[in-house]
């Protein structure tokens, strides 16, 4: 098998990079060791959030926000995107002061996506919200999407654009020759000029195979989904300083997450739920919206994703190996960035450069020094 580009990892970032590269006429093979969206992309709360983004991520995030509102143009489906807005609630004065400070700093830099709202407006947006909430940051154009529909839409669009997708295909070896890579996989040898490493929690293994070893942690954020209930909360709600994000899907289920960490298996191949740790997020949800107390949980899970020390992703060319582009380490907030990071990576694939400033995402931050030969 042979292609211009081999994308390793069938999550949303891999699919997005593959799709947008293929649209520029590049031949692409995408390999996924399980099935598409098996880990972080399928385990995500699917928040579409510019709210509270690190300044370095904002340009990518704002570009992505615009694409989410016109997602049909990119993948032929709206991916279940619901522009319900996102709220970051302040439950005490200290939290409110922090939010005020951030919003005014953003405004000073000319960013207007976040707006400070007071208690009255907040409680009219979410009537079920507990009375102690003082105010919030409000991003009216944010929202959430349907992760599985998003995976399906990106897959179908990628296939239509000519991407060849191989599921149940594990990469076991990567060898760089003068002008191309030879990738050993469980489904045969693949020759490609370029490789995109979008292997999520396993990106460090791919980087090591390619000769560009990195050190990354693994996040195992837990999520809760409940039975369906009548519509009560429209926006996605989080609380500053609490491990909580809360939303109601179009199906009527409540989805509660926010970064409480599950238990990573010693072999780093799987993660399981830590019910007591999860109770902190659930407790925060019940404190914020007491009316949900009697609703039954039907499922919880722990997703797995690569995490960097500064919680910023790694996006860009390897400096030690030719023909290797990284796109991983989204540290639990990569879902919204899927369209814009895919575009930036496709730029790197097709032109060797992109108009986005990727310096904050340089792989050198997490590089492991190779022992001298």
């Amino acid at each position, binding site marked *: 098998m042979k292609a211009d580009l081999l994308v390793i990892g069938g999550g949303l970032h891999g699919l997005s990079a593959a799709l947008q590269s293929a649209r520029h006429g590049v031949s692409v093979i995408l390999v996924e060791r*399980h*099935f*598409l*969206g*098996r880990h972080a992309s*399928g385990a995500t709360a699917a928040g579409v959030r510019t709210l509270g983004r690190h300044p370095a991520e904002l340009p990518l995030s704002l570009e992505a926000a615009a694409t989410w509102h016109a997602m049909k143009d990119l993948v032929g489906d709206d991916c279940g995107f619901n522009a319900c807005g996102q709220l970051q609630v302040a439950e005490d004065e200290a939290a409110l002061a922090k939010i005020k400070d951030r919003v005014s700093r953003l405004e000073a830099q000319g960013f207007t996506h976040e707006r400070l709202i007071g208690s009255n407006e907040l409680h009219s947006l979410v009537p079920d919200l507990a009375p102690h909430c003082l105010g919030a940051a409000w991003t009216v154009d944010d929202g959430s999407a349907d992760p*599985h529909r998003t*995976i*399906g839409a990106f897959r179908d669009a990628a296939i239509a654009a000519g991407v060849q997708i191989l*599921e*149940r295909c594990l990469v076991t070896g990567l060898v760089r020759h003068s002008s191309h890579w030879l990738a050993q996989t469980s489904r045969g040898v693949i020759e490609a000029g370029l490789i995109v490493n979008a292997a999520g929690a396993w990106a460090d293994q791919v980087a090591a195979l390619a000769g560009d070893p990195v050190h990354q942690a693994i996040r195992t954020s837990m999520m*809760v*989904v*409940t*039975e369906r209930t009548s519509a009560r909360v429209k926006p996605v709600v989080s609380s500053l300083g609490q491990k909580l994000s809360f939303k109601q899907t179009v*199906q009527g289920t*409540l989805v*509660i997450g926010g970064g409480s960490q599950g*238990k990573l298996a010693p072999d780093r191949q*799987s993660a*399981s*739920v*830590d*019910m*007591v740790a*999860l*109770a*902190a997020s*659930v*407790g925060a*949800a*019940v*404190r914020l919206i007491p009316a*949900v*107390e*009697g*609703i*039954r*949980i*039907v*499922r*919880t*899970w722990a997703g797995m994703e690569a995490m960097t020390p500064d919680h910023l992703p790694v996006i860009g060319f390897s400096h030690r190996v030719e023909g290797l582009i990284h796109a991983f380490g989204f540290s639990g907030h990569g879902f919204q960035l899927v369209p814009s990071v895919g575009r930036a990576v496709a730029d790197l694939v097709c032109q060797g450069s992109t108009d986005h400033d990727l310096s904050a995402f340089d792989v050198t931050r997490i590089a492991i020094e190779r022992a001298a030969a």
Partner: protein
Amino acid sequence: MIHDVVVIGAGPAGMSAAVHLRKFGASVLVVDEQPAPGGQIWRGIERNASGAIAAALGADYEKGRALTAAFRASGAEYSPSTQVWQIEDEWTLFLTSEGKARRVRARAVLLSNGAQERPVPFAGWTLPGVMTVGAAQILLKSGGMLPQGNVWIAGAGPLPLLYATQVLGLKGQISGFLDTSKGLNLGALAKLPAAWRDLPSLAKGFKWQRELRRSGNLIRGISDLRAEGDGRLQQLEWTAGGVRRKAKADVLLVHEGVVPRIHETLALGCDHDWNSTQNYFAARSNRWGETSRRGLFVAGDASGIGGWTAATVSGEIAALGLAGHLGIQIDIEALRRESQLDGRRSRALALRPFLDAFYTPPNTSIADDVVVCRCEEVTAGTIRKVARTSASDPNAIKAATRCGMGPCQGRQCGYTVQAILAEVHNLPVGDVSFFNIRPPLKPVTLGEIASLGELENAE
């Protein structure tokens, strides 16, 4: 405190294990979803002490009385009406009773939580008025309730025969019994000689069949069953002898055998084996009932369908295994020999190969318009369509269709999704895996989980 063993399920296997573990001096907590001990087979044994219902339930039912009394006297701590909704490593169990969640710790866990009826979707199976034979028998055992109106039974296996006999014994009415079994086949005949070792059970089965035939409407060799009605069951259709037939019906009770409960062992990542005669997964266990996870044991039907006699013996064997695991100073090999546990178990299982071959699970392809996932209302057609372009992994189907995402966690649709994937990808059924099972094992409220965090803060 830390219990030596938490036993999940107070049926034949769980009670038997608890009684013996107490004899060895272990501290035991038995948790059970039911309000009283006995499991499914001996449900309501303590309240049905005498009278017409007890008489109709028969001799096997009566045999539960002694073990239940021994369990009550054993000194095992007993938590009835309690759901186990999460089990974490080495071993923490999360329980809910009377709307309150709590955590208990244990050095070892025994899963003796039995079986569930095999869900077999057919056209109209979600209509009110259609229920399982097992559910009908629960109503009989717990309140003496008999189905009313035109009552039909459709299915195969010992349970529908037994239930029909019990209903007739209580002067109940059954309009007809649609027997879906294939009849005596070569595979079953080959197993018959071994089955003679359990002559009483074999004779019992023939007696049930005889009584049923005498009552009238025993219809053999039926297929393409369809339940119809406007908002509830009104009539049945089926094919027998190449002819399509119809009948009025108010109640349809269905049953196609039972399969082990595996959600707990799946959630804990235990190794499982595929039973290709009866088409189910069961947790792999060693000769003491220990699964691939150290300290996690399984006994009774939960470890593979064997019936109540085999379950009591396997509970006894697991008690020995658990004693060994706990380091209790007894000679478990000698006790196993002296109590002739292996001989008793093999006699109790003598009829099983015959039954398994006689009552083979249905293998007909499910029509596209039939609802497979009741929670999320996903049809066989939707699953087939997605299966054609997805990996042969049920979790990919779940992600793409929401099939198996509802409160039952795939207990109703898991095996059907597996069968459809096997059909579409042309694979042996056992080569397709099951859904990944995520906690909670039983639905639990947000408030109950939140209260665990408060417990933590108080500690």
